[in-house]
């Protein structure tokens, strides 16, 4: 089979998943800009019709479309492609792929209808006992189930590949995709349990009361690792593609594998760091999560070295010299598929530092639930991850449609403006957070808002938000023009980095996922089960409320 042939059967669902994820980006980004302007006391909501003018409806739309939908649709498409390319074969089950796509679409529609009709203004974290329309919970659950079926399809594809290649190591790309699915399969159990056993029966009237702390814990069981579910596809691009895109090689394949595998055990027993200021949980349990949180920093620290070293190697092979001058050899202004990723990494580094602050037990109390937190999360998911995905889209869309990218110059302008927009907005958010401004607040109308004191910070948030709006519109324009009007055939292939040192031997555990999953199950049992069991069996259950 020639290369293009192996994607042919699956191209339609990957393409449509990407399109849908971009539509979600557009919807969510629109409200994002209104939110950013609210932080400088400018209210554009009043020009919207009922019920869309409501701040918390908009914030729910922003969180749900971006956090649960833009991400999931993109991830499913991207991991499918990576699996297919890595194993050089189409997905094992076209039926399952179709079912995955259908389920995700139905889930998104089911969750968004009540959101837009103001039946589900509970934000993307849906903390009980705020009670939304059952379709909201059912829709989100369907999206989670779609991620499972996508993961199963990747596994089946790997299994049939393995039957034909019993003695060959799984290629890095597909191995990384499989570790991502394995991590997520374990991580998503929390939200799934909360939905299936509490929120869905309760909102449908089958259950009178739910346990707020239990559902909050189950949410954060999934809510922290979900960020690695967003991040790992970007890591796949940084490790297995970017070195090739800059003409270099991957520094070390075994280390890359270790990094991906390390996310399985370390991402889940850490979620309580989102709940340090919560009652009802002893601090010994919180301390355990605080310690494990530092462990999950490890794979990202390794990444900082390995990825930068691989990029440096490429730059030097292209004639880069000097201690730092090689950086200028990189295609910052000529290849948006590369510069988007590099700019994303710059944001990621700043977010790594703010992340360590968030996770630090004591300092957390200063920043918890302030604007600092959206500042951190926008450098990470909305910055590093989104920029990397935008950069990848500049070759993904041509690959899947056969049409050449509409404009390299506009695409370059796009990633740079997104970078500056995010950097400026996040700077303002961090600043506001330090001044004690709470997040998730319709600030323009908050009686305690001190806009005079926060003026500069608020202006940065607003200005960053407007720049992001323009950049987002430019992204959609480039993609739409490529899909609709590009006439030249695309000449792209999936970038695939070769290792610098070919590996003959590698410890077997770096080609196995099961042992890591086993360790993880034990760690989860230690870190989560006792407190979840105690809360579920001894803490109060309460009625639901609709307060919007």
């Amino acid at each position: 089979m020639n290369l293009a042939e192996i994607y042919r059967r699956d191209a339609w669902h990957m393409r449509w998943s990407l399109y849908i994820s971009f539509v979600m980006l557009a919807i969510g980004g629109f409200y994002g800009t209104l939110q950013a302007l609210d932080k400088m006391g400018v209210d554009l909501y009043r020009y919207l019709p009922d019920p869309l003018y409501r701040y918390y409806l908009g914030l729910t739309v922003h969180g749900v479309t971006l956090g649960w939908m833009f991400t999931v649709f993109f991830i499913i498409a991207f991991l499918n492609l990576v699996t297919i390319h890595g194993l050089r074969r189409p997905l094992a089950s076209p039926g399952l792929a179709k079912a995955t796509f259908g389920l995700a679409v139905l889930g998104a529609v089911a969750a968004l209808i009540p959101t837009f009709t103001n039946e589900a203004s509970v934000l993307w974290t849906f903390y009980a006992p705020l009670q939304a329309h059952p379709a909201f919970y059912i829709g989100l659950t369907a999206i989670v189930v779609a991620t499972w079926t996508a993961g199963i399809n990747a596994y089946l594809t790997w299994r049939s590949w393995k039957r034909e290649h019993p003695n060959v190591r799984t290629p890095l790309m597909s191995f990384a995709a499989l570790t991502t699915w394995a991590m997520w399969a374990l991580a998503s159990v929390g939200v799934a349990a909360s939905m299936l056993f509490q929120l869905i029966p309760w909102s449908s009237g089958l259950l009178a009361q739910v346990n707020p702390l239990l559902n909050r814990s189950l949410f954060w069981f999934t809510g922290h690792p979900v960020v690695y579910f967003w991040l790992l596809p970007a890591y796949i691009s940084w490790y297995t593609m970017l070195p090739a895109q800059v003409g270099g090689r991957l520094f070390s394949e075994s280390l890359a594998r270790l990094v991906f595998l390390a996310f399985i055990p370390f991402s889940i027993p850490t979620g309580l760091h989102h709940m340090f200021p919560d009652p009802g949980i002893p601090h010994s349990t919180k301390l355990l999560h605080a310690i494990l949180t530092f462990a999950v920093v490890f794979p990202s620290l390794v990444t900082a070295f390995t990825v930068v070293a691989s990029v440096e190697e490429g730059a030097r092979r292209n004639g880069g010299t000097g201690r730092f001058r090689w950086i200028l050899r990189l295609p910052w202004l000529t290849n948006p598929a590369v510069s988007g990723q590099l700019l994303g990494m710059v944001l990621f580094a700043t977010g790594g530092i703010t992340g360590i602050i968030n996770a630090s037990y004591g300092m957390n109390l200063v920043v918890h639930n302030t604007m600092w937190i959206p500042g951190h999360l926008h450098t990470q998911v909305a910055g590093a991850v989104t920029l990397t995905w935008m950069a990848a889209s500049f070759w993904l869309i041509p690959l899947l449609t056969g049409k050449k990218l509409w404009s390299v110059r506009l695409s370059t302008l796009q990633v740079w403006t997104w970078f500056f927009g995010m950097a400026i907005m996040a700077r303002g958010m961090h600043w506001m957070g330090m001044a004690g401004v709470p997040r998730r607040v319709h600030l323009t109308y908050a009686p305690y808002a001190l806009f005079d004191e926060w003026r500069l910070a608020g202006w940065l948030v607003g200005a960053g938000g407007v720049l992001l709006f323009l950049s987002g519109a430019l992204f959609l324009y480039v993609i739409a023009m490529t899909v609709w009007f590009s006439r030249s055939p695309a000449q792209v292939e999936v970038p695939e980095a070769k290792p610098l040192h070919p590996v003959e031997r590698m410890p077997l555990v770096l080609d196995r996922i099961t042992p890591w999953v086993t360790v993880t199950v034990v760690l989860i049992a230690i870190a989560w089960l006792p407190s979840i069991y105690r809360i579920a069996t001894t803490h109060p259950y309460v009625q639901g409320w609709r307060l919007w």
Partner: protein
Amino acid sequence: MATDIDRYELTWIYICVVALLVLFGVLLYSAYALGIHVETDVGQIHPAQVATTPPFDQPGLRMIGPDHYEAVIVARAWVFDPPEIRVPVGSTVTFKLTSIDVIHGFKIPRTGINRMIVPGQISEVTHRFDEPGTYTFFCHEYCGSGHHIMNGGIVVEPR
């Protein structure tokens, strides 16, 4: 270990491991030697029983020792009961908080007081107010359409 790991890469890994071990150490030291602790489990109370169970049946301020007060505050959409508390400067205040409806928050900027208020749970936090002035507190967890108006104040009066 595998043979393809570079010498510099390995050095970097050792540096990272040491840095993380130091962070662990700092964390354990601050928790056990300095006694810096975040919120812990101080008990539960069902929202339906809040109105009849001490101390939440009588929200407000009472003295529990020399210069030491207990402030009992009940949160509900979208008010704190009581919304205002007055204490003399230099007082230590132990806040006891709970909610009778949904999750709320409690933050006083510039004091390090930052707590979640979860229905069914009791939150507790203690702080000494050494500077006179008005300290605004507000709800920092989304609790419905009036979330942004949910606030109150602590007036620390000069002696």
